[in-house]
């Protein structure tokens, strides 16, 4: 468990959250960035890193992944710190107006202002509609991501899914686990052709069992998972003994615990004042896709604008008695903290 003290805690390491570090840095405010994903970039890294974006000023075209890299380079002088792979779970407003946040892994962050730049929320695993699945979560046999492959050493696994993630982990875990069964609803894989070929070869070599045109329809066990039912599209069920079931159907965004912080919410987004993108809770700001206001456009460039005004607002909140004079970077360059 670690403890961090900073001026602004930015929740969300997407492009808007990263640029907020820059704008806050210009005002000599220190930032700590938290994101539930294990890497920075938000949707840009998670969903479309290789897609070109055409509406970033100054870039006729830029790959989403490259934009993230450039933003990281741009904010480097301000030495932001990061907590990645953890979600802010607990929120407490202290008597002096500052905030104490605690993540899912127990990291504690003390800050004077919060900028929520959480996009559409935290990305959470997309779960299949299997009854009682939840009762085997939390280390009891159902895992929605592979954090440590060693956890599955010499175990019997059923992986479900038809995308790259299901194929990649099937290939990797074939050498780690005792048994790997890959269950896929269809008959072909549209993931990387090379990965699909490798899985087919592993199947032919007897190292992976491939069950096509089928779904995992039931999970069973007494406290911990003991077996699953795989049902073919023809309705024929089969019981398979397992130690772990790993459904890999990608991620879907959820607003998460932010929805319980007393913030004014409208249509799953946080209502803000466009003066400085402050919320109804003093000291908490919301920028980017997670906020809403009349005329809202969910564009990265709008999020950048919001980040600049948010930083001014946060500065005034943190230093109510100091007067801020806007300085252009062309005059003074980029200051460092």
């Amino acid at each position, binding site marked *: 468990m670690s403890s961090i003290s900073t001026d602004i805690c930015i929740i969300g390491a997407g492009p808007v959250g990263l640029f907020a570090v820059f704008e806050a840095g210009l005002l000599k405010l220190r930032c700590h960035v938290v994101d539930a994903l294990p890497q920075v970039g938000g*949707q840009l890294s998670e969903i479309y890193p290789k897609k070109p974006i055409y509406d970033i000023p100054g870039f006729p075209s830029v790959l989403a992944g490259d934009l993230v890299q450039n933003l990281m380079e741009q904010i480097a002088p301000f030495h932001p710190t990061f907590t990645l792979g953890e979600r802010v779970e607990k929120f407490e407003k202290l008597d002096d107006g500052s905030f104490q946040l605690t993540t899912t892994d127990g990291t504690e962050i003390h800050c004077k202002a919060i900028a929520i730049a959480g996009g559409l929320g935290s990305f959470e695993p*997309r779960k299949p509609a299997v009854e009682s699945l939840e009762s085997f979560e939390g280390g009891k046999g159902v895992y929605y991501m592979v954090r440590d492959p060693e956890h599955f050493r010499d175990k019997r696994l059923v992986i479900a899914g038809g995308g790259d993630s299901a194929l990649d982990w099937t290939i990797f875990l074939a050498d780690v686990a005792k048994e790997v069964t890959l269950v896929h609803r269809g008959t072909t894989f549209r*993931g990387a052709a090379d990965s699909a070929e490798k899985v087919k070869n592993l199947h032919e070599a007897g190292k992976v069992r491939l069950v096509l045109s089928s779904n995992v329809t039931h999970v069973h066990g007494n406290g911990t998972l003991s077996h699953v039912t795989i049902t073919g599209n023809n309705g024929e069920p089969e019981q398979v003994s397992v130690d772990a079931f790993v459904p890999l*159907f990608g991620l*879907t*965004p959820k607003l998460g615990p932010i929805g319980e912080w007393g913030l004014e919410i409208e249509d799953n987004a946080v209502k803000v004042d466009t003066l400085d993108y402050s919320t109804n809770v003093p000291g908490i700001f919301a920028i980017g896709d997670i906020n809403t206001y009349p005329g809202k456009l969910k564009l990265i460039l709008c999020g950048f604008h919001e980040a600049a005004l948010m930083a001014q607002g946060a500065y005034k909140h943190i230093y109510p008695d100091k007067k801020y004079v806007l300085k252009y970077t062309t005059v003074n360059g980029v200051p460092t903290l």
Partner: protein
Amino acid sequence: MSLDATEVRVYVEDAPGQRTEIVAPTDMGLSLMEVMKASGYDIQATCGGMALCGTCHVEVLAGPSLQEPSDDEMYMLESLPVLTDASRLSCQIRITPRLDGLVVRLMPQDA
């Protein structure tokens, strides 16, 4: 409906037998996802219409036949936990005059 119609009617089935009509312009290059979103339907459409997130998944229940899904659309659909023979990504369905009378239902995200 003539092939040069400037608007079409599509229907969203909110519950079995309960269909809501949406009138959509055909000359703006909109997708079904955009039209449903503009009509207040709770569609995340995280990727903005690039067939990359699967959060605008619909099932086509009735109406005119549609163009075959592209490889990108099929790739995304196949990675979702639930797929029916009539599954489509609404962001990949363009509003054209021949779409008149289409009936869809939104597919749940966690099912």
